[in-house]
Structure formats: C-alpha cells, structure tokens
C-alpha cells in the first residue's frame, strides 16, 4: 500500500509539474464552467442592443423615442454616427441599425406621417428581429398617443378649452394607462420550471471524470515509453502495487477536477446544499474509481500511448453520448435502454437525483453498478497485464 501511494503521489507531483497537462485538466473545467454559466447562468430573458442613428438631434419626438428605448429593461441603447453605422453594416459588424431621419419631429409636429427606418443586413438576425419587435412596439405606442391626442382635440374643438389643456390632459390619461393598463399579461408555468443548470451540470461533471479514463489509459504506456516501467519492474515494487498506484493517481486526478467544477457550481448556481455537495462528491469519487479502473483495463490491452489514448477517447465519447451528457434521454425509450451500458449514465442519474433533492439511499443500483465496474475492471486489467505477451 505504501509503495502504491508513493507511485500515486509521484504521478500527481509530475502532473502538477507539467504545465500543459495541468492547464488542460484544471483550467478546462473552469472554462467549461464559464461556458455553462454563459449559456445558462443569466435570467434567461432576452437582452439586446438597439443601435440608433439619430439625425434629428434637436427633435423632441426623436428624444422621446430614444428615452422610451432607454427605459426598456431588455434593451441597451447605442447611438452611432451615420457613416459609422454604414461602415459596420457593410462589414457585417452589425446586422440592424435604426435611423431617425432629420425631419422626424418636424413632420410629427405638422401632423404628418414620419418614418423610422430600419437598416439591416439580411433579415437582421434573430436578435435583431427581437430588437426590431421591441422598437416597433415603442413606435406603435407613440403612434397611439398621437392618434388619441388628435382625436381628443378634434372631439373637443369649439368648446373653448385651450388646446394646451387638452394636450396635457390627454397625456396624463395616456401616461396613467401605460403604467396601469387595463389589459395585462400574466405568466403561469405549468409544472416545475425547467432548470438547465441542474439538467446539464451532472453530465458536464461526469464528462470530466470520464476524461480520467484516457489519462489512466496512457499512464502505464507513458511509463513504458519513458523506460521507467522496466526500471520499476526491477525494483521491489510489485506489479500489483504499480497498478494500484496508477489507479489511485487516476482517481485523484478525476476527483480534483470534479471538486473544482462542483465548488464553482455551488458558489455560483447555489444548486447544492452542504449535504448534497458531500453526497455528490462521494458519487464523483466512486465514478472516478470506475473510470480509473477502466483506464487500467485499456492500458493492459493497448501497448502504445497512441493506441491507449484513442481507445480511451473513443470510450469516453461513446459513454458521454449514450450517458445523456448533452441531451436528456427519456426513460423507457430504446435510447435509454441502450444508454444503460454507459457507466456515466448511472453517475449522471445519481448526481441529478442528489442535486434535485433526492435521497442518497435511493441510489443503490447506481452505486452498485459503479462499484461493480470498478472491481471487475481492476481485476481483469491486472490479469490481462500479466497474461498478455509483452504486457510488462
């Protein structure tokens, strides 16, 4: 046991000294985490930017339109010069720009129709279309105000009411309506709201543990390539100790990566309780042992670093796809049944159960499968390493 620990510690030390390896295995989970956060971490509502060229710089209605855009929670306003806007549209840096023409306010003052121009590349893109819809809504509201004001003025004409008073009263009513509309929209969610973080984070977590398969698969072949395997065989270290040391090193590396990702997830998404965090770590540790044992199985069969890496990558990708890392597999479907051969499917299920508030005691099957894979793969790997010609 002591020698196995020394082998594992030596490997971890070497791994910490190898900057490229370290960067790959530690920074990558952080980058993935940032991507998850970028994809799922916000409020989920649309947020875009309205790019506007305002040629009606002193116009009161142009200013009113800009103020209305600014008030939108879902929009940022960015003013551009015309030449700059044309240039960016031409280079496809922007796909949609709103142009307020110089005579916009003057025309409205005269009661004439005024045009807000949308300049766009193609259809303006999906985000552009949404921004256009929001701006169109603002313009419709302005239009409505003008129509109502004109109709009220017309209806009250000849009753000796000053036009200024008519306009002011009309505006007060419109303002009150806009803050307390008679018809509103209420959102009612049917069933529980989907939580994309809880849905996909388990898959990302287990995917990183799966990577330890390739690392462990390469570990003994790396020793073989360096010539240190032969040297180790001539020492008092037994093959069993060497195997167990490599196994421990694989577990440790997979576990360190998972710990980083889980800690970040907890800090940002608050998806764990202290208890479920520890329980999930235990599952991750068990899953890491299964992956490390499979890595050893691969290294026992594949006798070059390239072969073991490719087998490891193929295995990892297959398990990732079948295990529902990137998409949810509905229970009872054929794909779900096929996915049962994927060990990370069991790990995913267990982690999902825990982060959704399920009990550790219900994970008997998942734990039994992962533990069974660990023991079986380790024993078979050891036997194969001994039996296969040139195994040593």
């Amino acid at each position: 046991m002591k020698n196995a620990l020394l082998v594992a510690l030596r490997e971890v030390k070497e791994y910490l000294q190898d900057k490229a390896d370290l960067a790959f295995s530690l920074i990558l989970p952080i980058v993935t985490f940032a991507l998850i956060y970028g994809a799922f971490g916000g409020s989920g509502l649309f947020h875009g930017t309205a790019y506007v060229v305002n040629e009606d710089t002193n116009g009161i209605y142009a200013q009113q339109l800009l103020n209305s855009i600014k008030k939108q929670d879902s929009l940022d306003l960015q003013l551009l010069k015309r030449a700059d806007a044309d240039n960016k549209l031409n280079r496809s840096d922007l796909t949609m720009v709103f142009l307020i023409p110089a005579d916009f306010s003057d025309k409205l003052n005269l009661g004439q129709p005024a045009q807000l121009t949308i300049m766009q590349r193609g259809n303006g893109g999906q985000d552009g279309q949404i921004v256009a819809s929001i701006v169109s809504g603002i313009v419709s509201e302005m239009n409505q105000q003008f129509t109502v004001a004109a109709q009220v003025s017309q209806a009250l004409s000849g009753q000796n009411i000053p036009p200024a008073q008519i306009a002011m009263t009309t505006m007060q009513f419109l303002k009150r309506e806009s803050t307390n509309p008679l018809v509103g929209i209420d959102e009612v969610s049917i069933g529980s709201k989907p939580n994309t973080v809880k849905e996909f984070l388990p898959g990302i977590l287990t995917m990183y543990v799966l990577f330890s398969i390739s690392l462990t698969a390469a570990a003994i072949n790396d020793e073989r390539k360096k010539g240190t395997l032969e040297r180790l065989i001539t020492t008092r270290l037994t093959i069993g100790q060497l195997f167990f040391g490599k196994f421990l090193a694989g577990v440790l590396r997979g576990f360190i990566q998972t710990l980083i990702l889980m800690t970040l997830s907890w800090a940002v998404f608050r998806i764990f309780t202290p208890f479920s965090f520890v329980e999930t770590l235990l599952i991750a540790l068990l899953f890491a042992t299964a992956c490390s044992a499979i890595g050893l199985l691969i290294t026992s069969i594949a006798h070059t670093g390239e072969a073991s890496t490719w087998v490891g990558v193929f295995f990892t990708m297959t398990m990732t796809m079948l295990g529902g890392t990137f998409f949810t597999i509905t229970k009872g479907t054929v794909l779900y049944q096929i996915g049962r051969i994927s060990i990370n499917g069991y790990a995913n299920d267990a982690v999902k159960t825990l982060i959704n508030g399920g009990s550790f005691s219900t994970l008997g099957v998942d734990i039994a499968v992962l533990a069974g894979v660990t023991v079986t793969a380790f024993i078979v790997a050891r036997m194969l390493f001994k039996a296969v010609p040139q195994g040593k």
Partner: protein
Amino acid sequence: MAENFLAAQDLQKSFNGNKAVAGVSFTIGKGEIFGLLGPNGAGKTTTIRILSTVLDADAGDATIGGFSLRKNPAEVRSLIGVCPQDLALYEELSALDNLIFFGRMEGLDGKEARSQAMVNLALMELTERAKGKIAKFSGGMKRRINLAIALMGNPKLLFLDEPTVGIDPQSRNKIFETILNLRDKGLTVLYTTHYMEEADRICDRVAIMDGGKIVAMDTPLRLRSQIGDPDKVTLEDVFLKLTGRSLRD
C-alpha cells in the same frame, strides 16, 4: 577465483519464433566487472532483461546471490540495480526527486532515500543540480543520473546496459571512474557496450555474443592473445573475427 555471484544456466528466450537468446550460460564472480559484447541483435539486452527479472526465460535459470530467478524473483530484485540502455527518468521531476522516488521503490525510508540520493548525486558530481528538472539536463548529465538511480538501495549486482551511449568524454570518464571505484568496494557489474576499448579498459572478463549465443568468453588480454600479439591486437579485432564483418540490423 572469487565465489560466483551470478550463475546463468542455459538461458533461452524467443520472440515470435526467433531465438533471441539461445542457451546462454556464464558466471560472474563477486566484485567482478563482466562485459557482455556483441553486435546489434546478438541478445545482450534480452539477456540483461531476463537476469533483471523484466522478462521470463523460456528455458534455463540463473541464480543471483544464491537466489533463483524463477523461484525467488523478489529476492533477486532486492540485490540488483539496473541502468537501462535508454534513459529511464521522470523528466518533469528534479534529479533529487527521481533518486528519492527510486530509492523508496528499493525499500529505503524517506530519510535514507534522501541521504543516499545526496551521496549518489555527489558521486556523479551533480550535487549542485539536485533540484534541477531533468528535462533541462544535458545528455551526459542524464546518463549520470541514470547510473545514480541504479545505485539507489545499495545493489550488490549492477546491470549496465550501454551506459555511455552518446555522451561526452568527460561524462564517460566519470562513469568509468565510478564503476571502477564501486567494483573496488565489492560491487559486481554486468556491463554491455558496443565500445570495445571501454570493455578492454574496465572489464575483468568479457563474453562475446552473436546470434543469441556466447561465442567466446575470457579476459580481454587472453582473448587478444588468441588471435595475435596482445599488445598489437585490439578487442575490436577479436570481436570482428568472431562475429564477422557483415552489417547487422
């Protein structure tokens, strides 16, 4: 004649039907430097790999320090040190860490391993580079570290498989000095090399292998005498006479 520390009896090993070692028998006395010479593919490295327990022989056996390779491989491992032909080092670790790690693998405790590592580094004149990463070392320095590691755990028998390949004369000389000093302290050495003048200089006896068999075995002086005036004939002349001039792959 010193008592035999190693006695190999009819060792045989085949790979895919090709006999790499075809019945090799020899003995090495305690404190003797024994050279195993031969062209490429002669079976030298396979013989060393069998004797150092890396490979199992198809037939035959050997005793080292009285222990049988077949019956007591663990005891054999406790008596041997191996300096392989290819550098076998952890490049990302320091020289000291490499030596300590292999020392621990030889059964030394942490304190002993560190202390012996420092002694061996001093022996190789690499004390000042103890904490330097192996990846930054020159070829000669790596060769010296390769030998220093083989000495961890105070082996009684040292296998040196072409330990001076591709290094500068200074490093080579340092390795010779070390081997001769250790021999004087009672260490037994099995040495393979392609450099005949090396074997002539440091080996007490040599065996010349070809085609998996030993074709001659004696002291360098007696082997030279067999084909002419030993002051004029070199070991290389003997070697070429016995193994022929045809190129080997």
